[in-house]
């Protein structure tokens, strides 16, 4: 079995995950649709990155593209994704298989349907472990119990032979996490891991992820539309809108002082973070249709601060403070306005 270290391009010194100008386009009935449009970010060991945005903003698509999980065609992927220096975009299947699971793992929103209904959970958890290490079923089962205990599934030694439908949603999510951890990955991408769960269970799962990232030195990429989760968990946050990054930076800084009207709008719908911007309680309009993006800034139709200049060109990300960036042409005006409003 190939180890990650043996893959071409492996570089200990490189960032754990470096995404550069990632684009994902789909061919569609009405032409090409850019689901992800020039997204860049890096993740360092042990770090937690939160990607925030509404549905359809390209959060999930970008993460799927990282692991090569989008079928091409219809998807067209360009840009660069480097895991420890290994290029993953258009990488050979063998490279992707090696990286998946042991380098980068991913868990999904709907845990119940994301587990194979006809295989025992223990088998599913230990499957890649057995395949990669050549272990037999018995030791695989033992390892599965171990992992299940690690994600705090009660009575693991008995439940290891159960099928997914015998578990609750929260338990399924734990199983999926256990499964993702089977090969000790360095990064875990969690795609809205709690959306489908009850509120109380959401909390438990988030706690579990948090403790895992602390104890196992696991970098976490958390996709969520829940800013509360982001504020609590993330070291860094990235806000996406219509396939583009609109703002990125350290969590505290961004939440304290958002530089993009969209971020502001999102935050304003979060009563428990800050009430600085409570007048902007709702975002008017609806998320954009990707095939019919407006000219200029995509957020313009819904933006309070939209000006004629916003129609002319698409705002690029520009550094708007220490280790943070935003993509608003009027960032300075907004800020002034806000300040004056206070």
């Amino acid at each position, binding site marked *: 079995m190939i180890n990650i270290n043996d893959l071409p391009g492996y570089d200990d010194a490189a960032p754990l995950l470096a995404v550069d100008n990632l684009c994902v386009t789909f061919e569609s009935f009405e032409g090409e649709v850019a689901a992800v449009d020039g997204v860049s970010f890096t993740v360092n060991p042990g770090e937690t990155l939160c990607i925030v945005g509404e549905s359809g903003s390209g959060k999930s698509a970008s993460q*799927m593209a990282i*692991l090569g*999980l989008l079928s091409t065609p219809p998807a067209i992927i360009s840009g660069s994704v480097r895991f420890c220096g290994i290029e993953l975009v258009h990488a050979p*299947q063998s490279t992707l*298989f*090696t*990286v*998946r*699971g*042991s380098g980068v*793992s*991913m*868990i*999904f929103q*709907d845990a119940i*349907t*994301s*587990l*194979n*209904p*006809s*295989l025992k959970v223990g088998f599913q958890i230990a*499957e*890649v472990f057995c*395949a*990669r290490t050549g272990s037999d079923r018995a030791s695989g089962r033992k390892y599965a119990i171990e992992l299940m205990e690690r994600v705090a599934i009660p009575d693991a030694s008995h439940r290891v032979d159960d*099928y997914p*439908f*015998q578990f609750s949603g929260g338990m399924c999510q734990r199983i*999926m996490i256990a*499964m*993702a951890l*089977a*090969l000790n990955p360095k990064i875990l991408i969690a795609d809205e891991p709690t959306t489908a769960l009850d509120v109380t269970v959401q909390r438990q799962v988030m706690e579990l992820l948090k403790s895992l990232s602390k104890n196992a030195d696991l970098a976490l990429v958390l996709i969520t539309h829940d800013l509360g989760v982001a504020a609590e968990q993330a070291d860094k946050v990235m806000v996406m809108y219509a396939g583009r990054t609109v703002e990125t930076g350290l969590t505290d800084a961004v939440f304290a002082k958002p530089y993009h009207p969209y971020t502001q709008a999102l935050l304003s719908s979060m009563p428990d973070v800050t009430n600085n911007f409570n007048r902007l309680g709702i975002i008017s309009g609806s998320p954009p249709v990707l095939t019919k993006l407006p000219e200029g800034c995509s957020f313009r139709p819904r933006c309070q601060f939209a000006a004629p200049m916003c129609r002319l060109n698409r705002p690029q990300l520009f550094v708007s403070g220490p280790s943070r960036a935003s993509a608003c042409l009027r960032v300075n005006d907004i800020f002034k306005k806000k300040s004056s409003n206070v």
Partner: protein
Amino acid sequence: MPYTLRRILNSILLLLVTISFVFFAGRMIGDPALNMLGPGATPAALEKLRVVAGLNDPLWQQYLHYIGRLLTGDLGVSYRFGFSVIPALDLKELGQPVINIVLERLPATFFLAGSALVVAVPLGIFMGVTAAAHPRSIADRIVTALSLAGVSVVQFWLGLMLIVLFSVQLGWLPTGGYGGFQHVILPALTLAARPIGRIAQVTRSTMMDELAKPYIITAQAKGVQNHRIVYHHALKNAAIPIVTMIGDETSALLTGAILVEKIFAWPGVGLLIIDSLSRSDLPLIQASIAVVAALVIIVNLLVDFSYRYFKPEIILGRGR
């Protein structure tokens, strides 16, 4: 298990209804005594046979008698050398019990149908899976075309064409008859064409559905190899429609063998049915139909029970 029991009872009832239907319908084609003894029989011989065989009893009594004997495995005696036509022999029962004749022919039909299945099931599944794993690729198009051709072709015509090509023109394989491996190739291929197509079609469409399900992405994300995802993860979940189709096609093979056995002079139950129909050998027809119907019903039952293996929910009693 009450479910199992209920299914089995249902099947037995169905078999009984079929056999009864065949019994009563068979009585519509005229005097059984005349059929047995042939047009040359004297009235005295006919009357004697009617008395001996109980043909003068009311129909319901004859029916009960028939069912009663059936329970002991006695389905009557073939008309062929059935009762002596020969008054000198004083109406001796000469013929073989039909059930023996049918059972004697079963191995040949099993051999043929089994060979066809051995070809059709793996090939059909492989074609369907390949097509589903690479939608819209060249392989997909070829599979779609072949499977459509398989279900559209007339079986016996295909058999004739294969004979012309492989036996007559090329001389590679025998034209027919019962024998070993060489003899079974052409009839099995002929018989397999349709199931290959049907199995490939259903495999392709269910596998496409399965491969679009979230758990596939999960398996990919955790680093499972593609072929393993396809054959281990998806195929097991796609199994129920495929197994149902295999069951249907197995039943169809058992009856479709009638035509193929005729074309290839393959001495199975199918040829027996054709022969006995052309001889109006009613007991033999009844027995053949009863046996084939029983086989088909058993296949259906097996398919039904196999669902439990593929859907753990069913065993564990939490149906969706």
